[in-house]
C-alpha cells in the first residue's frame, strides 16, 4: 500500500460527514484500516494466567466475513458490559450524561487528520453508548432509534474493533468535555470486552505476553539484555573515554531504576539510556537495574486492568527481592500513567517494609509527592540535581540542536508533569523553542501511535493522526529552525520518527536525558568531539572520517 504524499493527504481531509447516518454507514475493513490480530499462541499464553480476562484464541482476519467468534459471544460481551457498569462508576456516568454538545469533536487527532466522523470522541463513545441504551435502559428499549439506541450485533462488535483500536487513549477529548467524559476510559472498557471474545491486536498482546515472561515488551531475554547494555557502555566509552558501570540484578542497592525497554533496544531511545547511565555514573548513584522488571511501559493498560495489575506488580516484587528502598523511573509515557493513577491502588500492598519515602541521596531532597508509590520520575530527580548545582553541564555541546519539547500525552494529561522536563531542557541546551499554544502542555497532541497502535500496517492512519503534532512541529521548524524534538516517552521516540519524516522532514527525535548526557561534563573524560549519536560536535566536523555507526 502506498502512502499518499503529505500534501495529498492534507487535501483529502473533509470535515463534512457522509450523507448517511452513522448507524447506516458501513465500516471499511480493507487492509490498512486495522492492526493485525494477535497470534493464537499469544492469546493462549495470556489465558493461562488470566483466563477471566482473555479468551477465544484462534487464527483470524478482520478482512474475512467470519471472525470466528464463540457462539455465545453476545452473552459474554453483554455480561462483561454489565459487570463493568457495576465495577466502574466512570463507565456508568459516562454512558448517561453526554449531551452530545460536540465540544470534544474536533479535539481528537484521528478526527483532525481523517475527517472520519466515527473518530470524533463523542461518536466513538456513542458506538458503545448506543448499545448501553438499547440493552440496559428502559427508554432505549422502548424508543429504540429515537434515543439513538441499538442492540448488540456482530456488525457493531466489528465496528468497535476498528474504532476502539483507532483511539490512542490519549485523553485529549476529556480535557475539553464539560463533564470530563473520558473517551479513553470508554475505549479501555470496550477493549476489555473485546478481549473476552478474542478481538485483539498483536501489537498489544505480544508485548503483554513478552512483558510477563521476559520482563520487557520486546521479549529480550536476560543475557541479551545484558549484552545490549554492555554495548552501550562501550559506546559511552567511545564518546567520553569513561567506562560507566551498569549494574543489573544486583542486591543491596538503594534505588531500583526502571525504564521502558524501548530505551534499551531502539534508536534513538538508546541514546537516552546512555544519558541515564552517564548521569548515574557521574553521581556514583547506589542503584541497580533489573532484567526481570526490565520494562517500564505497561502494555497491560491497553488490554484490561487484570493484565495491567499483573505486569505492574513486577516493579515492587523486584524492589523487594533486591532490597531497594525506592524506584526511579525513566522516560516513559504510559508507565507513568499507570504509576500515577493505578499503581498504589492495585499493588501498594506488595511493597516490602524496606521501601520508604524516596530521598535523593545526592541532595537530600525528599519526594513527598511520591510518598505512597515510592517512585520518582527521572526528570524530577534531575531537575532537583540541577537546582542544587550538583551537575557540571555544558549546554553548548547541544548547540547543533534547536530543540523543542513534545509533551507526551500520558505524563501531561494523567499526571501533570509539565514543567520538570522543561526545566531540565533549559539547563542542558541553549536553543529551546516551544511549539504553538494549543498543541503543548495539557493540550498536547498525541503521536498517534500510543496504546499499542505503533504498528506499520496502519501507517496511513498514524500519519493522519500525526497531522496536528506534525504541523505544530513544522511551524517551529520553519520559524526557528528546530531540528530536534525531545520527549519523555519511549513510544514517542519510536512513533514520532515516521511522523516527523512525513510532516516535518529533517527534524530528529530524542529523549531529554540524551541531551543531559551530551551536556554532562564527567570528571576524567576525554575531550568530547562527538555527541552520543557519535556525530561531530560543532568545531570537530573534520573528524567525521572515523565516524562509526552506533552499534544497534
Amino acid at each position, binding site marked *: 500500500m502506498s502512502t499518499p504524499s503529505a500534501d495529498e493527504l492534507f487535501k483529502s481531509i473533509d470535515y463534512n460527514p457522509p450523507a448517511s447516518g452513522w448507524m447506516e454507514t458501513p465500516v471499511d475493513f480493507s487492509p490498512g484500516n486495522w492492526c493485525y490480530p494477535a497470534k493464537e499462541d499469544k492469546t493462549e499464553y495470556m489465558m493461562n494466567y488470566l483466563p477471566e480476562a482473555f479468551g477465544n484464541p484462534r487464527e483470524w482476519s478482520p478482512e474475512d466475513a467470519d471472525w470466528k467468534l464463540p457462539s455465545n459471544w453476545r452473552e459474554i460481551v453483554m455480561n462483561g458490559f454489565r459487570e463493568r457498569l457495576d465495577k466502574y462508576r466512570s463507565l456508568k456516568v459516562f454512558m448517561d450524561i453526554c449531551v452530545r454538545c460536540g465540544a470534544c469533536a474536533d479535539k481528537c487527532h484521528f478526527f483532525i487528520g481523517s475527517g472520519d466522523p466515527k473518530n470524533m470522541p463523542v461518536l466513538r463513545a456513542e458506538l458503545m453508548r448506543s448499545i448501553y441504551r438499547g440493552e440496559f435502559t428502559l427508554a432505549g428499549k422502548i424508543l429504540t432509534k429515537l434515543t439513538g439506541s441499538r442492540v448488540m450485533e456482530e456488525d457493531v462488535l466489528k465496528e468497535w474493533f476498528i474504532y476502539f483500536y483507532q483511539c490512542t487513549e490519549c485523553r485529549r477529548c476529556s480535557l475539553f468535555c*464539560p463533564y470530563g467524559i473520558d473517551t479513553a476510559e470508554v475505549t479501555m472498557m470496550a477493549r476489555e470486552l473485546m478481549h473476552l471474545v478474542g478481538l485483539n491486536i498483536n501489537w498489544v498482546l505480544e508485548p503483554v505476553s513478552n512483558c510477563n515472561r521476559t520482563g520487557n515488551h520486546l521479549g529480550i531475554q536476560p543475557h541479551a539484555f545484558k549484552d545490549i547494555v554492555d554495548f552501550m557502555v562501550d559506546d559511552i566509552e567511545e564518546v567520553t573515554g569513561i567506562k560507566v558501570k551498569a549494574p543489573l540484578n544486583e542486591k543491596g542497592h538503594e534505588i531500583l531504576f526502571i525504564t521502558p525497554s524501548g530505551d534499551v533496544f531502539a534508536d534513538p531511545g538508546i541514546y537516552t539510556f546512555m544519558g541515564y547511565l552517564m548521569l548515574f555514573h557521574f553521581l556514583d548513584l547506589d542503584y541497580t537495574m533489573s532484567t526481570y522488571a526490565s520494562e517500564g511501559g505497561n502494555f497491560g493498560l491497553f488490554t484490561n486492568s487484570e493484565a495491567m495489575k499483573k505486569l505492574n506488580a513486577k516493579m515492587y516484587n523486584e524492589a523487594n527481592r533486591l532490597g531497594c528502598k525506592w524506584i526511579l523511573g525513566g522516560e516513559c509515557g504510559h508507565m507513568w500513567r499507570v504509576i500515577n493513577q493505578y499503581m498504589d491502588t492495585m499493588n501498594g500492598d506488595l511493597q516490602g517494609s524496606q521501601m520508604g519515602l524516596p530521598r535523593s541521596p545526592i541532595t537530600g531532597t525528599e519526594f513527598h509527592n511520591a510518598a505512597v508509590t515510592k517512585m520518582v520520575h527521572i526528570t524530577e530527580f534531575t531537575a532537583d540535581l540541577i537546582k542544587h548545582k550538583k551537575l557540571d553541564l555544558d549546554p553548548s555541546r547541544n548547540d547543533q540542536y534547536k530543540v523543542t519539547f513534545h509533551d507526551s500525552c500520558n505524563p501531561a494529561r494523567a499526571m501533570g508533569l509539565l514543567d520538570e522536563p522543561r526545566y531540565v531542557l533549559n539547563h542542558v541546551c541553549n536553543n529551546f523553542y516551544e511549539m504553538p499554544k494549543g498543541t503543548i502542555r495539557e493540550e498536547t497532541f498525541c503521536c498517534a501511535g500510543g496504546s499499542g497502535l505503533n504498528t506499520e500496517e496502519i501507517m496511513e492512519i498514524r500519519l493522519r493522526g500525526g497531522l496536528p503534532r506534525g504541523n505544530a512541529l513544522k511551524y517551529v521548524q520553519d520559524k526557528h529552525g528546530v531540528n530536534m524534538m525531545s520527549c519523555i516517552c519511549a513510544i514517542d521516540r519510536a512513533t514520532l520518527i515516521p511522523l516527523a519524516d512525513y510532516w516535518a522532514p529533517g527534524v530528529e527525535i530524542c529523549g531529554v536525558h540524551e541531551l543531559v548526557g551530551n551536556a554532562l561534563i564527567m570528571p576524567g573524560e576525554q575531550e568530547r568531539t562527538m555527541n552520543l549519536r557519535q556525530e561531530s560536535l560543532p568545531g570537530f566536523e573534520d573528524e567525521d572520517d572515523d565516524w562509526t555507526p552506533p552499534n544497534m
Partner: protein
Amino acid sequence: MNALYSLVFVFILVLIPLFGVGAAHLSTIFGICIPMTAIGIFLVFSVVKIIRWGRSPVPFRIPTTAGQQLSYDPEMFKQNKWDNPSNGIQTVIRMILEVCAFRTLFRNTSTSLHETKNGPVVAFASSKWLWLFALLFHYSFLIIVLRHLRLFLEPIPFFVNGLDFMDGILQIGAPVMYMSDLLIVGGLLFLLMRRLVDAKIRYISLVADYFPLFLILGIALSGIWMRYYAKVDVIAIKELTMGLVSLNPHVPSGIDVSFFVHVFLVSVLLMYFPFSKLMHMPGVFMSPTRNMPNDTRFRHHENPWNPDIKPLSYEAYEKDFGPMMAEAGLPLDNPDNAKAPEEA
C-alpha cells in the same frame, strides 16, 4: 429529520392540554393530577438514578490533569491548583468553577485546516460561543425557576423579590419584561441553530438532543404568552400552586388555557428528565475525572474489588532463564537454576 420529529412531537404535546382543558374541561387533571405525578416521577427516578451511579464504586483515581502537578518542590514548579488539584478543597474549587462558570467550555477551541503558501496549516482558535450561550441559557433557566418560587412560597422570600426586581430592571413594557425571558429564548435558539448548521454536530444529534430544546422553548414561549399576551390571572394561579404545596389542591376558575399548556409542558419535562441526558445536571458532580484530586502518588486510594492477581514470580523467571543468566554472569538466587533443565 431528527429535529423535525422533535418539533412535531412538541406540537402534539401542546395540543393535548389545548384540547384537554379548552374543549374537554379536564382542568383538574391538567392542573393537579399530571403536575403532581410529574413531580413524583422526577424526584423518585432522579434519586434512583443517582443512587444507581453511587452504587458503582470508583476503583481508580483518574482525574484529568489540566495543568502542572503538585511537585516535590512546589516553589520551583508552581502547581496549577484549580486544574490539577491535589486535595479536597482544591477539587471543590475546581468543581465550583466548572459548575458555576462552565470553565471547560470557556477554554474550548475550534480546529480548522488552511492551505497557505508555506504549506498546510492546522489552526486552533478560541471558540467561546458555546460557552457564552450555554451559560446564558442555563443562568436564565435558573433565574426563571427561582422567580417561580414566588408562586409556591408565602411569604415570598426577599431574594425572590430581589431577583424579580433585577430581572425586570429594564422596565420595558407592562407587565415589565424580564431579561431572562429574552435570554433563555436567545440561548435556546443558538443551541438549536448550532445543531442544525454545524454539519458535525448535526451528524451526532439525536431526537433526544432536539426534543429537550424544543420542549424548553415551548415552555418559555408559553410562559411568555401567558404573561404578556394572555395576561393570565396570577392571583388565581397562586391559589392553585399554594394548594399544591399545602397538599390541598383545587383549581380556581378563570385560569387561561395557556397556563395549562405551560404546566403540561413543564410536567413532561420533569417526567422526561430522569431518563434522559438532562441528568447531566446531577451527573457532572459524579464525574470521576473531575471530582477527584490527583493525589494517588502520595495518598492511598482503595479499590473495593481489587482482584488477587500476582505477578509472574521471580523464581519462575529464574527457572526459565537460569542457564543463560549464569552464562551472562548475572547473579542467581538459586544456583541450581544455572544448569540446563536436562542436567538438573
